[in-house]
């Protein structure tokens, strides 16, 4: 098994190098045989990565503790699901997962029906193969997943209890799918540039792939936030930690790209900008990995320090320099035939603003993240900027972005006339203002919150109008019943309405963020048995402190009864779990969730005499965060779903090459 597992890695490395060489040779000599051999190499590579993954799964599942990785992350009594998911608990395993996804994507591109016979394939695959070489190299020489120990331990160290949560099963997977996914648009962009071909086909395919990567990246961040919320017991979901920022930055730039590429599609503008966005997004994924794995920044997330990050930094440097070189050498070509702006109040300019805001937001995050490093280099002290910095900077940027998002759907392409503006905006603006006045009357005094919710109201109305008008126009012609009309309308314009759904999702998330950031209430109290804590209109009665056993885990729990406005909501048990093999307990919070707010109860300490210390939080509108996330998923899936839709991806029509 040891030989076999290691063989998959090294053969994979050899295959990746071989395929890369043969592919580039095939391209330069225009020899189809060589290119086909390279494609065969892609299959073999996928098989290798798949076998390596299965081997590690097998070793983890059967608890073969003679392997370092198995010993370090599992123990024999761990539930099977966590034994298997320990695959991405550590450095080597998570990189293996990354490699596997990369080969998976390569397979999908090489043999997809849409790409059949497309001369871009060899170029795309070569670029992805270069990535694969890097990852197999890392697996083979830096972070080896299949290391044998000198002695066979009888028991493993167990999985960190914080990782024993459903959120942690799926969060890394989605995040990696997103990270790897972003290398696909990058490969597409580079291939297009090298071939001096930037047609519709390129844009459509790249957009699809970017949406997929974007979706996974969003999911990764959301699952991460949710895990933090339910597992860590601090009642928050986002801390602007370097590691979180690392995954937020590419998300922002990818979002910017998804929007600006629409202008390119329609107007043939912003081509250099778009390519740059792709390069930046891709580079940021590598940079993020560098941050996470190198330990240069103080982070609660940090993986074990290793020189792994350095390799990523070098690889990123090479990739960026080469990408820039290709971009520069094709600059004149791209610059040609670019469209121009014809009006300020148009979709184009609103997209541009949205782009600037998104990239600005990404830059602000970047700035805050690397600030300690920069200041250390310049002034000698590590100056840190904390959560307040990010909140102060990001809140206005993201709020203005929400505003652009609210306004944009109603702006026309090319130019919007005053009349058209008045028709479209009078109603939403009135509704938004009324909503804001209502909020103030009802006693909301925080300016940011009122403005924020006003903008969200505006967004909801404008997006509702989009659907409403679309359905109305359709019914005029077809006389269908409204629901059918809505269905047909959206299915015919998947990308557009999918996008709107995503917007609505973002609006919901923003609602949750504004609510929970501005109106959360927290209290921390030590009380005796039988006493109670009051917070807002809740009363929490502390009834009992007890302990129980679940498998090898000891659980200390407090039984509390929660009343709201005097009405009994039920009895809940915030716990501290002492996992076997781990000295330190971890909190299991009790969350009572409703559309309006979450009541969040943490049992943090207890004394001999039964007194216990609780942290109780009321987080308003938290559920909207998860509802919005759900809508984002539905919206993006809807947008990329390969059904019968009008904008069929056009066949490739660009320059012909001899090999494909």
């Amino acid at each position, binding site marked *: 098994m040891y030989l076999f597992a290691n063989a998959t890695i090294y053969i994979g490395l050899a295959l990746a190098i071989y395929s890369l060489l043969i592919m580039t040779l095939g391209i330069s000599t225009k020899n189809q045989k060589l290119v086909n051999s390279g494609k065969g190499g892609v299959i073999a590579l996928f098989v290798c990565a798949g076998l390596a993954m299965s081997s590690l799964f097998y070793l983890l599942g059967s608890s073969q503790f003679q392997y370092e990785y198995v010993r370090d992350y599992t123990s024999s009594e761990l539930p099977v699901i966590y034994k298997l998911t320990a695959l991405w608990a550590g450095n080597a395993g998570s990189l293996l997962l990354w490699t596997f996804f990369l080969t998976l994507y390569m397979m999908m591109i090489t043999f997809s029906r849409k790409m059949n016979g497309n001369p871009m394939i060899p170029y795309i695959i070569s670029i992805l193969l270069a990535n694969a070489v890097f990852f197999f190299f890392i697996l083979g020489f830096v972070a080896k997943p299949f290391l044998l120990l000198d002695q066979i331990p009888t028991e493993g160290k167990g999985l960190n209890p914080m990782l024993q949560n459903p959120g942690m099963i799926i969060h890394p997977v989605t995040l990696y799918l997103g990270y790897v996914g972003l290398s696909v648009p990058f490969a597409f962009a580079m291939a297009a540039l090298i071939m001096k071909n930037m047609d519709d086909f390129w844009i459509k395919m790249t957009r699809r792939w970017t949406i997929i990567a974007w979706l996974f990246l969003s999911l990764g961040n959301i699952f991460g936030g949710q895990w933090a919320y339910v597992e860590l017991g601090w009642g928050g979901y986002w801390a602007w930690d370097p590691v979180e920022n690392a995954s937020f930055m590419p998300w922002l730039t990818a979002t910017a790209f998804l929007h600006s590429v629409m202008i390119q599609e329609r107007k043939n503008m912003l081509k250099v900008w778009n390519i740059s966005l792709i390069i930046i997004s891709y580079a940021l994924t590598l940079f993020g990995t560098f941050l996470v794995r190198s330990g240069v920044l103080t982070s609660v997330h940090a993986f074990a320090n290793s020189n792994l990050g350095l390799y990523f930094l070098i690889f990123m440097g090479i990739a960026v320099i080469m990408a820039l070189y290709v971009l520069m050498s094709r600059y004149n070509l791209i610059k040609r035939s670019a469209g121009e702006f014809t009006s300020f109040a148009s979709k184009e300019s609103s997209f541009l603003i949205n782009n600037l805001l998104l990239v600005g937001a990404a830059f*602000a995050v970047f700035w805050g993240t690397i600030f300690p490093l920069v200041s250390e280099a310049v002034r000698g002290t590590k100056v840190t900027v904390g959560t307040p910095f990010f909140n102060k900077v990001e809140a206005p940027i993201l709020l203005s972005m929400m505003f652009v998002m609210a306004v944009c759907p109603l702006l026309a392409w090319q130019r919007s006339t005053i009349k058209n503006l008045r028709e479209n905006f009078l109603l939403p603006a009135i509704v938004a203002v009324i909503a804001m006045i209502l909020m103030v009357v009802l006693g909301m005094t925080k300016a940011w919150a009122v403005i924020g919710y006003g903008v969200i109201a505006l967004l909801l109305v404008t997006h509702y109008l989009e659907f409403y008008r679309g359905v109305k126009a359709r019914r005029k012609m077809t006389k269908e019943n409204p629901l059918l009309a809505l269905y047909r309308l959206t299915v015919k314009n998947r990308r557009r309405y999918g996008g709107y759904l995503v917007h609505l999702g973002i609006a919901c998330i923003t609602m949750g963020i504004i609510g929970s950031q501005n109106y959360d209430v927290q209290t921390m109290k030590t009380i005796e048995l039988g006493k109670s804590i009051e917070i807002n209109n809740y009363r929490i009665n502390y009834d009992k402190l007890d302990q129980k056993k679940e498998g090898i885990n000891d659980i200390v729990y407090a039984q509390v009864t929660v009343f709201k406005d005097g009405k009994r909501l039920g009895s809940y048990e915030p716990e501290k779990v002492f996992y076997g*093999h781990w000295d330190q307990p971890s909190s299991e919070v009790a969350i009572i969730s409703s559309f309006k707010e979450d009541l969040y109860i943490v049992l943090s300490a207890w004394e001999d005499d039964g007194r216990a210390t609780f942290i109780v939080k009321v987080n308003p509108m938290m559920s909207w965060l998860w509802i919005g996330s759900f809508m984002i998923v539905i919206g993006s899936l809807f947008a990329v779903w390969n059904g019968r839709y009008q904008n069929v991806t056009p066949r490739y029509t660009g320059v012909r090459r001899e090999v494909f």
Partner: protein
Amino acid sequence: MKKNTLVMLGGFIIAGAIVFLLMAATPGSSGIELTMKQLLATQGQHKDDFVTVEGLLIEKSIKWNPDKIQLKFDVKDNDGNIMHVVHNGIKPDNFSEGVITILQGSPTTKDTFKAETVKTRCPSKYEGKDMKDYDPKKHEKLLNQPPHEK
């Protein structure tokens, strides 16, 4: 062409606004990160600063006052320097001997750090934990013992 330039100009204004926002927000919300050695040597200078410092927890020194919800403990660094920490809050989850604590707050008085936040980073968070000091009895003891030993 003129419109194009104007739109670009508008873009620059937005970009400028964002940069301005950055500059304006940086000083007010920034702090400095020091090693314990640096901090102890230059305590006086940093009285008003928001300081991030890392130290290894000394488990024996933990004093927990449940009624005031106040946590006192000492941290040390690898050179043997010791610093007292006061934190008005609760114990983080994995608060055990030798764990790396990330403290943020201000060094108000000599040798005492008033921490607004206390976070922990297990030196091996993603790298498993050493089994050699695992003691099955420990859980039981932990349960029956008040967290403050002294």
